[in-house]
């Protein structure tokens, strides 16, 4: 390690020697096509990924539309304080985001695991492949389509399921799944589980397929039935995978995806439906409070990083190794 460092220092010193400089410049010239090929991507990444970071300066200033971002008056942590203390919004937004994301994640992975285990027990290969194929169907659809589909089934005016349930006299009034604030969480969590079953179960299914057969055969010899095999072999093998997936997703726990929430959030259910991403969108793009929205955006990113570090530390302490 130290040798490498010494070498690097020697190389960088040697660049100052004329002969080496000429060598390196000639090398660059010989590779000029590679640099040209790299250029468009470097420009795009610089402009669309790194350049926006400079916009974070808006979070600590009172940005006025039409004037330069850099000339705006500095206000320090005013917007951050506003989010947590002055407006009552922080609690609701954080609550909504965490409830929906954590539930979707935990339940999504749980059902995917159960599904993967049950799928393995299916005798017919044909049925196995068909079911697995079909579970992917919702995943590739856009949220507009998914909303349209949920709407066609659950809308108050003409939703098929509402009409059927009313016709069968199971309910007397249509279920306002898309508007009732008490049902927001159930709706989103349900849709997320439906959407992600195929995606989440792929890893479990392939892990289960990787469990050596000898373990099962040994268990059968010891008299294990189907449930014993699942309980003592399949599930213990899956727990590490489950943990890794859970932990990997903690960094994204505050990210809800504007794609999904833009279309499911409306004036009726906003109190329980509004998540960070929608809140930022609403204050930034609809209310034009750019500085405030940028500050909230930074809060979201900051808390996500903190969460990731905490979870990683906890995992490291418990199992000796973490994600990094």
């Amino acid at each position: 390690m130290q040798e490498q460092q010494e070498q690097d220092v020697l190389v960088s010193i040697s660049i100052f020697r004329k002969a080496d400089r000429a060598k390196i410049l000639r090398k660059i010239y010989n590779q000029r096509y590679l640099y040209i090929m790299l250029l468009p991507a470097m420009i795009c990444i610089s402009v669309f990924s790194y350049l926006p970071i400079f916009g974070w300066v808006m979070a600590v200033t009172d940005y006025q539309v039409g004037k330069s971002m850099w000339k705006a008056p500095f206000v320090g942590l005013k917007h951050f304080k506003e989010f947590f203390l002055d407006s009552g919004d922080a609690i609701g937004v954080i609550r909504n985001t965490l409830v929906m994301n954590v539930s979707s994640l935990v339940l999504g992975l749980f059902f995917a695991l159960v599904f993967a285990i049950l799928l393995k027990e299916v005798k017919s290969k044909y049925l196995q492949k068909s079911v697995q194929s079909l579970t992917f169907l919702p995943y590739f659809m856009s949220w507009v389509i998914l909303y349209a589909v949920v709407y066609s089934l659950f809308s108050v005016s003409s939703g098929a399921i509402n009409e059927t349930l009313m016709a069968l006299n199971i309910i007397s009034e249509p279920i306002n799944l898309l508007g009732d604030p008490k049902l927001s969480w159930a709706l989103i969590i349900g849709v997320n589980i439906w959407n992600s079953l195929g995606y989440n179960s792929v890893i479990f299914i392939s892990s289960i397929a990787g469990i050596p057969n000898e373990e099962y055969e040994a268990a059968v010899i010891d008299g294990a039935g189907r449930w014993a095999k699942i309980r003592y072999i399949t599930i213990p093998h899956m727990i590490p995978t489950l943990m890794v997936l859970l932990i990997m997703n903690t960094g994204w726990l505050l990210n809800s995806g504007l794609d999904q929430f833009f279309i499911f959030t409306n004036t009726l259910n906003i109190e329980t439906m509004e998540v960070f991403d929608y809140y930022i969108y609403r204050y930034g793009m609809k209310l034009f409070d750019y500085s405030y929205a940028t500050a909230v955006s930074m809060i979201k990113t900051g808390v996500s990083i903190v969460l990731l570090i905490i979870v990683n530390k906890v995992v490291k302490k418990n199992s000796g190794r973490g994600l990094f």
Partner: protein
Amino acid sequence: MKRINRKDLPFTLINTVIMLVIMVVMIYPFWYVLVYSVSESSYVPGGLFLFPENISFDAFIVCLSNDDVVNGLYISVARAVVGSATMVVVSGMAAYAISKERLCGIKFFRKYILFSMYVVAGLIPTYFVMKSLNLTNSFGVYIFPAMANVFNIILIRAYMESLPQTIEESAYIDGANDFQIFWKIVLPLCKPVIAAVVLYSAVSQWNSYIDTQLYNYRNPKLYPLQYVLYNYMAAYTPSKESAMTKVAAVTPQSIKMAVTVIAIIPILIVYPMLQRYFISGLLVGAVKD
């Protein structure tokens, strides 16, 4: 394993039922939309149904004669094609360049590219960048940000590194420059990974609508099909719909269904291919440990 164990029967039965229920839950919502869209409007039964009543394509005819829908289709197809093509060129070239260890400064470039995945600036700053580049109200806002896709660069680069070096080396000796080697030799050899990323890019472009909402909502000519559908769902104004239904006896609901179907069909067509690449792609990352 093929023996039907008497004791197993209840479990197998329940499991099969569960699987069938899952299949129904996954597919029926889409089937319902399809069946509704080809049923003649006045005969549509309230509630769930399985087969179309009085097959009629009136809803589709009304849809496709509507300028908004046709323009939306055109924009969506253009996005998918142009977006994917430019992505392949830009990301492919970058992948090739950073796969060459001999490149001066390669460590810097790799870190720069990789780190950008973790740098999430946020909605508002990104909007400002787009605005100051005059990308708002333009078709370019669909294309330029998607050209350099870091994830795809990594995928393509990994594939390129697994190709045998011998062909490249002999071409190099024969006097070809890096660019020619990339275009004529390496890229054609990368067909599998290129096919996979093109498929994903096309689906992603086809499904995007929030970028229209953020940047292009003032220009209806730039609305992709998804956004047109979104407008139909969101702006359920009775006046607008009665204007449309004067043309034919087609209910607004049928029209929504028809537009939804038009938006779904391309996904269904590429669905088998998507699945195959998707599963293999997910597992590439997972098997590493």
